C-alpha cells in the first residue's frame, strides 16, 4: 500500500477508483469484452464519467486542478485491477501539457471533447535519437516505434526533440502519418508504431527561446511522471499477484497441508513481500519529492521505475511458481497481470537501462547523492 504523508486525496481517489472498478468488473458484459479483446469502451466511459481525467486538469478548464501525487492511488488501482486504456496519457500527460502549453487551445478543445489521445515519445521505447520525431520545414518526420494504445486513440501528443524540444499534436488520420497496430502478448495494451513522413501537426508551443525552455521542462516532467506512475501501476499489479499467490498458498494443499506451510514457499513469498514493500516505499519516496527541484524529482522517479522493473517481473515469476501448473493455463487469469508487468518493465527503461543512465550521471559528474 502506498501512502503519501499529509495527502488524503490520493487515498480517497484510490478508494473511489477501487469501488468503481469492483462495480464495473462485476458486470459480465465488461468482463467478456475484456477477456475477448482486452478493451472495453464502456469501462473507459465509466472511468471518464467518474472524473479520472479531471483530477489534474486545470480549474479554468473545468478540472480539479490537483497534482500528480493525488493520482497515485488511481494508478495502483489501475495496476491491481488491470485496467486497459490510455489512462496516463489522458489523465496525466494531457493535463500536465495543457497547463504548460502556450498554444493550448487545440489541446483544450480535444480534452473538452473527450477525444482520446496517446503520448508518442521515442524515449518510452528506448528508441535511438536519430529515428525519433523531428520537425523539418513545418512538417513532422521520423517515427515512434512504440505507442501504447496507439490503436484506440484519435490524436497523438508527440514529443519532438529535433531540431529543438517541443510538443505537438497530430491527428492519427493526417496525411503523412501511418499507424501500424502491432501484435502484442498483452491484450490489455494494444501497441502501434507510428511513422511521420511530412505529416501536419498542431504546435503547442511557439518557436522562441522561452517556449523551448518551457517545452523542454514539460518533456522532462512528462517522462518523470511516466516513470513514477508506471512504477505505481506496477506496484498495484505486483500487489495483486503477490496477494493471489499468498491466498493460493494458504488454500492449495499438497502432502496433507497447505503449501504455504512449507518453508520453501514461505520464504519465496517472504522474499517477494520484501521486494514489494521496497517498491511501494520507493513509489512513496518518488511521490513525496515530486515538488522538489527537478533533479531530485528525476532521480526519485527513475529509482522508483528501476525498482518497479525488477520487482514487477520477479513477483510475477514467483507468483507463477507458487501457483504451479494452473498458472500456465490461459483460463487462469494470473498470466494477464504478469505479461502486463513485462510490458511495464521495459517502458522508459528497465532496471539495467535506468541503472546505467544513473550510473553514468553519478560517475561522470558531481551528481548529488542523497
Amino acid at each position, binding site marked *: 500500500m502506498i501512502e503519501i504523508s499529509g495527502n488524503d486525496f490520493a487515498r480517497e481517489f484510490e478508494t473511489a477508483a477501487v469501488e468503481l472498478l469492483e462495480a464495473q468488473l462485476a458486470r459480465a458484459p465488461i468482463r467478456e469484452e475484456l477477456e475477448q479483446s482486452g478493451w472495453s469502451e464502456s469501462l473507459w466511459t465509466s472511468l471518464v464519467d467518474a472524473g479520472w481525467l479531471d483530477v489534474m486538469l486545470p480549474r479554468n478548464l473545468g478540472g480539479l486542478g490537483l497534482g500528480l501525487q493525488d493520482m497515485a492511488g488511481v494508478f495502483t488501482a489501475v495496476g491491481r485491477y488491470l485496467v486497459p486504456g490510455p489512462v496516463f496519457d489522458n489523465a496525466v500527460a494531457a493535463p500536465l501539457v495543457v497547463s504548460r502549453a502556450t498554444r493550448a487551445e487545440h489541446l483544450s478543445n480535444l480534452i473538452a471533447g473527450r477525444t482520446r489521445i496517446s503520448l508518442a515519445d521515442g524515449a*518510452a*521505447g*528506448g528508441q535511438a535519437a536519430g*529515428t525519433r520525431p523531428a520537425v523539418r520545414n513545418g512538417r513532422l518526420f521520423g*517515427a515512434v*516505434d*512504440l505507442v501504447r494504445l496507439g490503436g484506440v486513440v484519435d490524436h497523438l501528443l508527440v514529443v519532438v526533440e529535433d531540431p529543438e524540444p517541443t510538443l505537438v499534436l497530430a491527428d492519427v488520420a493526417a496525411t503523412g502519418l501511418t499507424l501500424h497496430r*502491432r*501484435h*502484442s*502478448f*498483452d491484450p490489455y*495494451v494494444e*501497441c502501434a*508504431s507510428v511513422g511521420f513522413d511530412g505529416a501536419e501537426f498542431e504546435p503547442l508551443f511557439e518557436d522562441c527561446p522561452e517556449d523551448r525552455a518551457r517545452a523542454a521542462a514539460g518533456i522532462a516532467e512528462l517522462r518523470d511522471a511516466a516513470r513514477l506512475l508506471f512504477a505505481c501501476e506496477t506496484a498495484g499489479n505486483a500487489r495483486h499477484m503477490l496477494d493471489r499467490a499468498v491466498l493460493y498458498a494458504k488454500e492449495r*494443499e*499438497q*502432502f*496433507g497441508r497447505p503449501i504455504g506451510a*512449507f*518453508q*520453501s*514457499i514461505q520464504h519465496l513469498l517472504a522474499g517477494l513481500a520484501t521486494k514489494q514493500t521496497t517498491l511501494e516505499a520507493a513509489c512513496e519516496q518518488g511521490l513525496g519529492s515530486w515538488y522538489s527541484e527537478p533533479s531530485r524529482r528525476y532521480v526519485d522517479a527513475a529509482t522508483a521505475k528501476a525498482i518497479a522493473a525488477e520487482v514487477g517481473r520477479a513477483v510475477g*515469476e514467483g507468483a*507463477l*511458481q507458487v501457483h*504451479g*501448473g494452473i*498458472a*500456465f*493455463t*490461459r*483460463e487462469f487469469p494470473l*498470466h494477464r497481470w504478469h*505479461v*502486463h508487468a*513485462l*510490458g511495464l*518493465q*521495459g*517502458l*522508459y*527503461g*528497465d532496471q*539495467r*537501462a535506468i541503472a*546505467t543512465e544513473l550510473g553514468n550521471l553519478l560517475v561522470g559528474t558531481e551528481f548529488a547523492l542523497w
Partner: protein
Amino acid sequence: MTSPASVEPQALEAYRNSARTWLADFAPPPLPQDYRLRTGALREWHSTLYRSGWVGIDWPSEHGGQGLSLEHALIFIEESARAGAPQPFGAIGLHVVGPTLLRYGTRQQLERFAEPLLSGAETWCQGFSEPDAGSDLASLRTRAVVEDDGFVLTGQKIWTSWADDSDWCAVLARTDPDRPKHKGISYLLVDMHAPGVTVRPITQITGDAEFCEVFFEDVRVPRSNLLGPLHGGWELAMHTLGHERSGYALRRRAELEVSYRNLLDAIRREGSGSDVAAEIGTAYVTLSGLSALSRRAVRRARNAEVPSPLDSVDKLALAKGEQQLFGTALDLLGSHRAAPLTRGTSLDGAQIVKDYLHGRAASVYGGSEQIQLTIVAERLLGLPRAR
C-alpha cells in the same frame, strides 16, 4: 554392475555424419501454424524417421529398435535439433512410456505395444498428474476397481500432453484405497478410444494447447494391460519420472542450443554493445555447463545408474539455464517485451516471449523446483527428512 565399454569415437563421428547428411537431404517440413495441420505433419515426420531407421535408435532390435547405444540416440537428437527438425510426434511414447515398458513389460505386452509405439502407428500420452495431486503425486484419486477380467477406471488427469491425439495412455490409478498411499497404485495401459474417455485440451499462456485434461468414466481396462505388479505401480512411476528427467534434460539441452544459435545470429545481424557481449557470453557459459552435465548423464545411463538423484540436479540446472537464456533474450527486447514485433530488430520477439513463458514453466513441470531440491537434499546430500 559392469560398465559396458564406451563406444568408439570414430563410429560415433561416422554416425553423426550420416545423420547430418540424411537430415540435410530430407529437410524437415516447415510446420504449419494451425494446430491440427501441425500434428498431421508431425505424424508424417515420425513415420519418415521410423522408415529411415532414426526412431528407437537405442532400443533393442528384437523390439523394433536399431540396437545402438544411447550415444547414438543422443547424436541424432542433437543433429535433429541443429537441423531445426521437430521431435517425432510420438515423443512421450518413445521417451516416457517406452523405457518403462521395456523394463517392466511382459513378452506379450512388448509384442503388442513396442513396434506400433516406435513406428508412430500408435501414439501415447502419460496420465500421472491430477488436479489435487501435483507435486504430491502419490495422493492421486483416480480409481481402478479390480474385477475378474480387468479394471474399471474412473477419475481425472491433468497436464496430459497431446492426449487429444493419443491412442494409448499410461495411467496411474489407485487399485487399493486401503493401503498406504504409495502402495495401492497400479500402472495401467489405457485405450484412449475406449468408451468413457473424454479429453479436453487446455490452452496454455503461450497460446499452444499441448496439455489436456482427461476424464475417465467407468472405462474398462483388460487385465493384460496392467504393467508391472498389481498395486506396485509406484516403483514404475518413479522409474518413469527418473527416465523422464534425465532423458528430457538431454533432449531439451540440444533444443536450447539451437535457440541460443538463433539468438546469436540475430545479434550478429544487428551489431551490439559490450553489455550484450557479457550477457550472450554468460548464456554461453551456462549452456556449456548443461552440456557438461549431459556428458555425465550419458555416463550414468550407460552404467545403468538411472534413476539417480543426479537426474534432479540436471533438471534443476536445466530449468535455471532455460530461464536464464530466455530471460536474457527477453531483456534484449528492451522496451518491446510485450509488443514483440518491432521495426528494426532482427530478434524474433514473438518467439522469445513464448520461449520465456515456456521457460518459466520449466521449474514446474515434471516435478517442481521445490520437489527436485528436496530430492537432492535428502537423497544426494543425505540431509534428514524435512518434517
